């Protein structure tokens, strides 16, 4: 793992109070593609009759994984903000299984990066949700730790 890949994992994982609380973890991040895991937890259940995770958990996982994918496509630490995010819920996730996400930044321009990806709980070929998002680059308000 390169230092930059480590930094991405830290920025979106341990350094972020909410994702740290969720146990979010970057599994791999390379050339604009990020794979991440969010462990199943009873605290995150949205439907108590089935034990299925809440849609907000899927949203958080995909938004975060997308941000990490975009940063890796850019190749340098840079302030980012999600501009919009669309989630299609394809099927319920299986109770008890960790959620995985794979998001790709497939286009970057001077100001905007475009990403798309899926969340899955077993096979990538049988996704739980699909996402498409845009991220604003070089937002003023944000300074990544360790950058001037």
């Amino acid at each position, binding site marked *: 793992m390169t230092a930059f890949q480590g930094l991405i994992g830290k920025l979106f994982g341990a350094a972020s109070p909410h994702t740290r609380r969720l146990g979010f973890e970057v599994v791999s991040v390379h050339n604009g593609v990020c794979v991440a895991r969010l462990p199943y937890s009873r605290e995150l259940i949205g439907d108590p009759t089935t034990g299925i995770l809440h849609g907000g958990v899927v949203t958080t996982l995909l938004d*975060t994984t997308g941000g990490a994918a975009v940063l890796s496509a850019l190749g340098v630490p840079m302030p980012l903000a999600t501009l919009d995010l669309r989630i299609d819920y394809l099927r319920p996730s299986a109770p008890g299984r960790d959620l995985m996400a794979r998001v790709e930044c497939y286009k970057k321009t001077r100001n905007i990066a475009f990403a798309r990806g899926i969340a899955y709980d077993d096979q990538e070929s049988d996704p739980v949700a699909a996402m498409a998002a845009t991220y604003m680059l070089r937002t003023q*308000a944000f300074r990544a730790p360790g950058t001037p």
Partner: protein
Amino acid sequence: MTETSDALAQLRETGRFDLILAAIPYAQFLGLSVDVVDDDPITKLTGADGLIGNPVLPALHGGTVGALLESAAIFKLIWEIKSVAVPKTINITIDYLRSARVVDTYARATITKHGRRVANVQVRAWQQDETRPIAAAHAHFLLKATEF
């Protein structure tokens, strides 16, 4: 009548959203509450350090704002429509309009259209001033069927 449909009917009679929220682990994890104001449910996400995504600003994680918007839409549907099951999210598109500060955030939903099977809902989230939304969403929900 199932247990769920009984609980929903009772909620519409009493306005006791707290009873439903207490049964949803993720609603507790996030810190969601609902106040019915002028016959309109307003969903609140209580500002807390555990919801911070970007510790530098600091700002709430976009996923928690997404979860608030999706939840507010579902509560509005439960309140307005005599459904016998909790509506299932088909998809949601979230627009992030302003950075979300670490304070209480509110969301109000409008049912744009509902048919027998599908409803379209628009939601706006704000912090101090409802005329300055921090995020907006539109979403489709499946109203009764147990499978897509």
